[in-house]
């Protein structure tokens, strides 16, 4: 009896704040997307799913979001690895150990606003280049926000995520005693290149993999940065979903729910991949 009463509060908490919102939210979205509930409910239909796929926005939106997430994660991984391995001591103590945290204090909306002011045609960078005589009008500066190469989004995501990756790799290096393992490898005759490719990199990537997948999921669903710095077509999944839901055309709402359900399924699959095989918790 005592065990049951001990269990009931955490069970209720998990139910109220995790299970119930998930079941209700995704269940409602699923039913709405199949026309079972909602203003346009006419019985079970796959019409809205077909429309979501046919319109082309859904596939290109997923591809675009995946592309942006992969580019951001790869750049941050390279940058984070390089800094963690080459500037380990500076990042642990001294002034750099404080400044490296600074981008983590920036909400996504503020990061997006800064890069909008920094990279736009009349932005800070454009003005500096004008001062140097490299451009002569604001229009002559190449558009780096809302551009087709997504430079603004990628730079904003690189800025906000790099410190997280640096800290992640630093903690893996410390927890796995990489310094000691490297010394052993070199004592046994491995060269520095061999140590890097066959010990350091595989160990860091293997231990960081669950967290990297988690960050991929976060980037996949990012909203504020693509909303401010992205182009109008294609849109990222979050931007497309919200736009479909907030349109005056009621026929777009079930399509929005269909995209939300598909996104949730992708996230669930990625989460299973991220958490299950390694049997270890990600560095949160």
């Amino acid at each position, binding site marked *: 009896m005592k065990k049951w009463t001990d269990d009931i509060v*955490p*069970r209720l*908490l*998990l139910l109220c*704040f*995790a*299970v119930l*919102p*998930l079941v*209700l*939210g*995704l269940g*409602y*979205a699923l039913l709405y997307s199949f026309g079972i509930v909602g203003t346009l409910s006419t019985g079970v239909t796959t019409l809205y799913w077909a429309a979501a796929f046919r319109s082309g926005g859904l596939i290109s939106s997923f591809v675009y979001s995946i592309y942006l997430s992969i580019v951001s994660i790869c750049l941050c991984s390279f940058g984070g690895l390089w*800094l963690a391995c*080459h*500037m*380990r*001591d500076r990042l642990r103590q001294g*002034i750099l150990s*404080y*400044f*490296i*945290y*600074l981008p*983590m*204090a*920036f*909400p*996504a*909306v*503020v990061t997006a*606003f*800064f890069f*909008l002011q920094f990279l736009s045609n*009349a932005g800070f960078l*454009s*003005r500096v280049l*004008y*001062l140097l005589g490299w451009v002569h009008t*604001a229009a002559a500066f190449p558009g780096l926000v809302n551009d087709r190469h997504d430079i603004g989004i990628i730079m904003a995501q690189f*800025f906000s995520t790099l410190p997280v990756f640096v800290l992640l790799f630093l903690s893996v290096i410390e927890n796995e005693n990489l310094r000691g393992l490297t010394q052993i490898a070199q004592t046994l005759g491995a060269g520095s290149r061999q140590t890097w490719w066959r010990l350091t990199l595989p160990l860091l990537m293997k231990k960081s993999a669950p967290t990297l997948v988690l960050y991929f*999921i976060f980037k996949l*669903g990012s*909203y504020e940065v693509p909303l401010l710095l992205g182009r109008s077509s294609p849109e990222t*999944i*979050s931007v497309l*979903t*919200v736009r479909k839901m907030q349109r005056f055309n009621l026929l777009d709402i079930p399509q929005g729910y269909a995209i*939300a359900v598909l*996104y*949730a399924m992708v*996230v669930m699959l990625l*989460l*299973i991949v991220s*958490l*299950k095989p390694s*049997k270890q*918790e990600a560095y*949160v």
Partner: protein
Amino acid sequence: MSNGRPVTAFFVVVWCTVPAVVLLMLSFSAGWRFPLVLPASFTAGHWEDFFTGNSSDLQASCLVSLFIAAFVGGLATILGFGCSRWIASHRRKNLLLFIAYFPFVLSPVIFAVCLKYFFLRAGLAGNLAGVIFAQLIIAFPYSTIFLVSFWNNTIRNYVAVASTLGSGPAYINRHILLPAAKSFLLTCFFQCFMISWFEYGLTSVIGYGKVQTLTIKVFQFIGEANIYYAALSSCLLILPPVLLLWFNKKFVLQAAR
């Protein structure tokens, strides 16, 4: 080799600080027209407006954001501490952690549009209670996941020894668990505070624009092309996390070590 070159360190410092410096400069600016690199004039007027309460309800938004973040951070930490203990000792720990991870990793804005109907029906849309509850749906799973790592074998052994020696649950909580978990709880509170403080998508959907947090204000000012007030709001948004990160680095992590 692992110390790096000073010039690289300099570039890293520049990369990390330039945004804060530019935003601070813009918040003190007037007349930043192309092609001026620096504004035509500097003014403390925007900040004065904020402190005197004359600036488009910015002061009220700041207080609302602070209240929501502190409340969500505190409640999520307290609830997460209890729930993480239960999960850590549960035989289906991995499944329960998976359930906790899912709402936390979903895009908040997509999650919010899926839940909006239920918030409307429950009378929780467009008000403070609704926004707090919605943010707890993200912050509580995070705090639970974060605090699960506290319940390791050492802590369990401490509790077992104390119980064997006749200590009651209240005594164990007060004299063993809370002192041991102090740095974990503080870090968890900071993280949950920041999750709430940074939140935009979920707050805009569930709050219907009626709950005007600072992040909502930044978007509003950007929409109005009022870059000076947007920069001022951005500075206000950055300040508490900077202080918390500094405090966390200076005291909590050092104490934990």
